[in-house]
């Protein structure tokens, strides 16, 4: 009976997530897992990742707050404001904490293009906060396109001179979760892995292999159309969107199997090309997002 057998449990995303969260709950009640401090810093970005995070299911964001971490600071979600909010940020510095950062770091005019609060009547810039917390955090998660590689904030002509978090913390190891926005499972899954087992296995660009190992193209349900050279001519066509500029062949995520909005659908499932939002260099390197004038040969009827 040494042979591995196929598991009899349900293997849907929901069932797996429910089993994981129940186990984690139990371990926490038994004192085997301890909640840790989380600082969620929003710098130069659009807050899209935290909005995506609030859409999380299995686990939900409420579960994260109740059972996974003590959220000590979040620009968008905390009740405190002004210097009282900054005080909470300063208080965490002497404790053990995990730092999650979304948004790029604006460098222009010593970071004054992105002020996140004030401290001792002085503006606290995103640059100062990133360096101050980044040096002391036990683990760092760069969340979303802007934090991992500059993303939309650093797109040409980049008036705020935004750079990635790694650029201002060159000596720190960090887990990079690209995506515009990041999928709630990618962030919460990485966070849960960090608490349960330590840092997850990553590729040479710092992305966790459990979410970012496979090309979209290799899991695309429309791959047979690509292999046969049957291409969509317009948005809404049910065939391969390659000739319209689909970036699935250069983007590594598990979107085809995980899907979005509670595993309901994903761009290609809705007949629109992948724009490569989780690829380094997005958006400039992934543009144009859609092209109609391409190598496709249009036959006259």
């Amino acid at each position: 009976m040494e042979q591995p057998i196929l598991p009899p449990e349900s293997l849907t995303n929901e069932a797996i997530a429910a089993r994981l969260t129940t186990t984690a709950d139990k371990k926490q009640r038994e004192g085997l897992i301890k909640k840790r401090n989380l600082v969620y810093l929003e710098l130069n970005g659009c807050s899209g990742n935290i909005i995506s995070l609030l859409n999380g299911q299995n686990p939900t964001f409420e579960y994260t707050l109740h059972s996974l971490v003590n959220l000590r600071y979040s620009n968008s979600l905390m009740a405190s404001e002004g210097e009282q909010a900054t005080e909470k940020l300063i208080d965490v510095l002497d404790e053990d904490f995990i730092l999650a950062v979304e948004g790029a770091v604006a460098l222009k005019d010593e970071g004054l293009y992105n002020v996140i609060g004030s401290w001792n009547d002085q503006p606290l810039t995103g640059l100062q906060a990133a360096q101050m917390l980044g040096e002391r955090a036990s683990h760092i998660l760069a969340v979303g396109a802007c934090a991992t590689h500059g993303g939309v904030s650093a797109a040409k002509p980049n008036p705020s001179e935004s750079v990635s978090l790694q650029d201002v913390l060159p000596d720190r190891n960090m887990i990079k979760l690209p995506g515009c926005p990041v999928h709630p499972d990618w962030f919460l899954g990485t966070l849960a892995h960090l608490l349960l087992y330590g840092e997850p296995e990553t590729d040479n660009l710092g992305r966790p292999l459990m979410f970012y190992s496979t090309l979209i193209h290799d899991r695309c349900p429309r791959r047979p159309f690509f292999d046969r050279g049957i291409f969509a001519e317009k948005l809404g066509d049910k065939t391969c969107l390659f000739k319209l500029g689909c970036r699935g062949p250069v983007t590594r995520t598990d979107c085809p199997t995980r899907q979005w909005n509670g595993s309901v659908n994903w761009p290609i499932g809705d007949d629109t090309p992948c724009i490569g939002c989780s690829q380094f260099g997005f958006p400039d390197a992934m543009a144009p997002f859609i092209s109609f004038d391409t190598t496709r040969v249009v036959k006259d009827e």
Partner: protein
Amino acid sequence: MHNIALLRLQMNHLVTQARQDLHSLSVMNDQSDQSQILQRLWDTVSTMHFISEMLANQASMPGYYVLPAPTLLPQQNGTTNQTSIPPITPLPNQTLPPPNQRQFTIEELATYDGKNGRPAYVAVDGVVYDVTNNRAWAAATHFGLTAGKDYTAEFQSCHAGQQSILATLPIEGSLT
């Protein structure tokens, strides 16, 4: 070409393949082999899905047996009015193109920009390659680069030492 008997035969073949892979997965322990078989299983299921859609499509249109599916391979599609692509031989000294290949000036190369149905060509180290149906060149663009240009320096900066990438591309000629 795509008659129902043939599709059924292909479907049965895929079912056999899938069963074989499922059996292999249930008895094997080697991680690296597992991922290869999982990939093949995934592709098999995708193809089965495709064929079942095709069959359903034909069933709903009784008088319509032949799909307008191209009989050409993707690599040849879109270049039908060009000279046919010779078989690719990935030799180490591939920088020397065969003598019967076409000579491109930089201006001629610029017309193969992948627009308005034209094929997409790019040049690296004096060799002109066809990227029309290369999967990393969707809509004839690749990480901000557009087709029809010489990308020797760009290839060096991103893919230094990865000559194997070039070896898989159809050669169209050389740059003069």
